[in-house]
């Protein structure tokens, strides 16, 4: 009897294991391709333990590509160990079939030469037609997405592309409330009026502030200097002894978010692409000299932070954040989270605070005529390229075709929505995802609306507007692949406040053509990468030592010190890096 029971239980267990394994979704009996994928970052374990369980990824697995099923297995390193983890996998030849290139120190070309990744060029037309259509119809993308190997355009890695740039997360901010309260109309001399239509909602703030340029926003250096005069009054009136008008990054200059860098000739402080499409270096140019003259003038007038050079551990978007949060500073480079009345702590200095964003500045005061009234065009903004990935030789040629077909789906409108927003109601009805059920998203993460002009608008579920982490976990944003079509960015920006949207519109007011995206460094050869690294380290060190000295007056920008600086800087051969960038620009003209 006991033996019979034991046999019955054993058989029942075997039957259960055989029939209950696998995922829902009704996969057919076709071959399943296992795809391993290394990504640098996953989601909070509150939502799911493994990225394999991401709802959008699970939906992707219900589909077939190249006639085959797919099974995605993600490898996510511990936070902080991404580079070590990636290099270890590379050295031990234990890398995945797909890997994100963010932490790879070798260029795609080197990896192809080493036999680690596939040269995708022969397969692109057939297996990734959507991707090819996007990159062939957008001339901006060509220098980045193609590798030029022996004069031939090759596709060695795949980029995540957006139709329009995602709104910048940082830029120049200033205390609009101080301008409204302590300033006077520069034309009539009348005091400004300001207030809230709904005192409980800072987004209802209004004022009639006018700057010397005649508009309601600061555009020129002269507007800023007018504003600094007002900030001085505010600081004195409020009894602030340790405040100042504007903060400055410890190096005295900044490649990222240097909103005064592009005020003179439109370029930035280091390497950039000029209006003719040629590579240029501004570290020792007339533009840099004029910039320093302006900063030195501001320093002598007491408008700058006297201790700016000592704040070496502060990020460029959070310089002296204790004083910013205390409301003691008039203008600073900040983030979306600083805008509006979000910094109102209820104390004397922050009560009624209203932070507005400001566009990159145009010089109309300092230097020669050539340095004045030039619209900025070399600006740090979010790139239209969010990252790139490669497909390794761990994938067989057959697997490669399936992988490319799958990735190409993510460059369609439907696939892009899955990545950016998550699943629709219809898609979730197919999958019945437990995470969507748990977070009450059974009606889907978003819906589509066709507008009168035929274009598409996207609306995310309200629960996702208030919770960025949840929104990210319900979509597949960690996969740096795919295409964000037109209309995606407004939908992603829906969650931002009116003040944040105002700031983002100002920060991205001018169109960037000059700032060199770091994605371009994927085009470097091994020797070029080594040259760039050495030259950049030397120049950055030298500039960060000397620019603050010029600004504080310890060195004379109008005398022999400047000539010595230029001579010394040129000894570090910035022209070598300029030549490297020029080669890349020329190769895709």
């Amino acid at each position: 009897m006991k033996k019979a029971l034991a046999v019955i239980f054993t058989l029942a267990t075997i039957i259960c294991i055989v029939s209950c394994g696998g995922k829902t979704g009704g996969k057919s009996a076709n071959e399943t391709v296992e795809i391993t994928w290394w990504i640098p970052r996953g989601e909070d374990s509150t939502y799911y333990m493994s990225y394999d369980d991401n709802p959008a990824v699970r939906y992707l697995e219900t589909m077939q590509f190249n006639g085959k099923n797919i099974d995605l297995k993600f490898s996510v390193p511990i936070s902080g160990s991404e580079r070590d983890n990636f290099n270890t996998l590379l050295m031990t030849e234990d890398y995945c079939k797909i890997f994100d290139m963010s932490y790879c120190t070798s260029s795609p070309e080197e990896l192809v030469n080493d036999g680690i990744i596939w040269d995708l060029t022969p397969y692109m037309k057939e297996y990734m037609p959507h991707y090819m259509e996007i990159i062939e119809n957008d001339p901006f993308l060509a220098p980045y997405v193609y590798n030029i190997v022996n004069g031939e355009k090759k596709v060695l890695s795949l980029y995540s592309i957006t139709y329009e740039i995602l709104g910048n997360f940082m830029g120049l901010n200033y205390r609009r409330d101080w301008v409204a309260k302590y300033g006077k109309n520069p034309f009539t001399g009348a005091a400004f009026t300001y207030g809230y239509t709904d005192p409980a909602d800072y987004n209802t703030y209004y004022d009639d502030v006018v700057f010397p340029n005649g508009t309601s926003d600061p555009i020129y250096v002269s507007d800023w200097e007018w504003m600094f005069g007002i900030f001085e009054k505010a600081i004195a009136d409020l009894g602030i002894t340790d405040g100042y008008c504007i903060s400055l990054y410890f190096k005295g200059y900044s490649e990222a978010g240097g909103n005064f860098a592009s005020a003179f000739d439109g370029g930035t402080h280091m390497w950039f692409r000029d209006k003719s499409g040629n590579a240029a270096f501004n570290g020792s140019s007339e533009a840099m000299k004029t910039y320093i003259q302006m900063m030195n003038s501001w320093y002598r007038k007491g408008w700058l932070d006297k201790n700016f050079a000592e704040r070496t551990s502060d990020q460029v978007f959070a310089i002296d954040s204790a004083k910013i949060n205390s409301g003691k500073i008039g203008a600073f480079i900040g983030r979306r989270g600083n805008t509006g009345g979000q910094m109102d702590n209820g104390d004397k200095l922050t009560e009624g605070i209203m932070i507005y964003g400001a566009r990159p500045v145009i010089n109309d005061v300092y230097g020669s005529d050539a340095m004045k009234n030039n619209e900025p065009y070399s600006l740090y903004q979010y790139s239209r390229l969010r990252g790139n990935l490669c497909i390794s030789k761990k994938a067989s040629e057959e697997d490669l075709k399936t992988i490319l077909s799958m990735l190409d789906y993510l460059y369609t409108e439907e696939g892009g929505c899955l990545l950016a927003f998550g699943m629709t109601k219809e898609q979730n009805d197919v999958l019945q995802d437990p995470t969507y059920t748990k977070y009450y998203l059974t009606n889907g993460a978003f819906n589509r609306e066709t507008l009168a002009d035929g274009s598409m608008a996207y609306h995310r579920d309200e629960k996702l507007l208030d919770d960025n982490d949840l929104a990210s976990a319900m979509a597949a944003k960690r996969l740096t692949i795919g295409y964000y079509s037109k209309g995606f960015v407004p939908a992603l920006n829906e969650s931002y406040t009116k003040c944040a949207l105002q700031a983002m519109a100002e920060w991205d007011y001018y169109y960037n053509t000059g700032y060199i995206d770091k994605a371009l460094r994927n085009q470097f050869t091994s020797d070029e990468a080594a040259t760039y690294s050495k030259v950049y380290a030397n120049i950055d060190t030298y500039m960060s030592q000397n620019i603050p000295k010029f600004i504080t007056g310890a060195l004379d920008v109008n005398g022999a010190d400047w000539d010595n600086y230029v001579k010394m800087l040129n000894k570090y051969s910035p022209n070598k890096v300029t030549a490297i960038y020029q080669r890349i620009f020329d190769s895709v003209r």
Partner: protein
Amino acid sequence: MSLFKKNGNADKEVLKEFTWKYDFKQNWMVYVLFIPVVMYFLIFHYVPMFGLIMAFENFKPSKGFFGSQWVGLANFKELFTGDTFLKVLRNTTAMAVLNLTVGFAAPVLFALFLSEVRLKHFKRSVQIMSYMPYFVSATVVCSLASEFLSSTGALTIALSWLGFDRQNWLANPNIPVFWLINTFLGIWQGMGWGSIIFMTAIANVSHDLHEAAAIDGATRWQRMWRITFPTIMPLVLVMFIMRIGLVFRTGFDKILLLYMPMTYDTADVLYTYTYRMAFGSQINYGVSTASGLFQSVIGTILLVISNKISRKAAGSSLI
């Protein structure tokens, strides 16, 4: 077989048999217990030495040790011919010398003086309080230093009473400001912990010697310098020699956290210089390994030299 003849003298030939084979036979368990220690050192200290080959290669993780291009001494050349290398070497040497002299003497003197304190509870309290900074992380130590040495910091105010200018001392680019700050931070953090071993050695000095000296009229000061200090001298020498070997490798984390472009001229050391050069936009494994190897070789040479000097001068040595 007995090791000794009946008259108690060890027979030379018998002693020859008292070899490691005999010892192993008698005490094999001790040797077996030692195996994990040997394995640990072999696996985690000797085998990884193979990685030093990166110092002679243009190392790429994708190519591995055997696929990367051999460049000979090119990485060392790049390191030594850097524009600021000499200044960096000067700073490293200066801070090393200060750590070895002032920094090493402090725990010894502290142990000597504290051992003379009679009040037990006071002595214990001071000892415990002196250990505490050792357990504070470098990041916190540097934050404290930044606050205390800022232009409005407590230490700055105290120094202003002594006639110094009120300034942010960490931003002072003049010699030897940063060197002294680094040394005294090291002393503040390491003095108590470093004195433990000396306190233990002092506690083991025979009381009979002190009693005899006291009877002969020696003062406490004289007893400290004529009895206590000479007795612990072999330990002091051994610790000093060990410290010499590590002199180029310690304190890098505090310097990295405290230095800034304004003080690169006096604060930049080999580690921080290598960090900037080798860990920029591209990681240069070859140069960073070459820098590490250079410092290790220098440290080893200094260790061997000081060991020999110590043996000749004081009859006491580490090896």
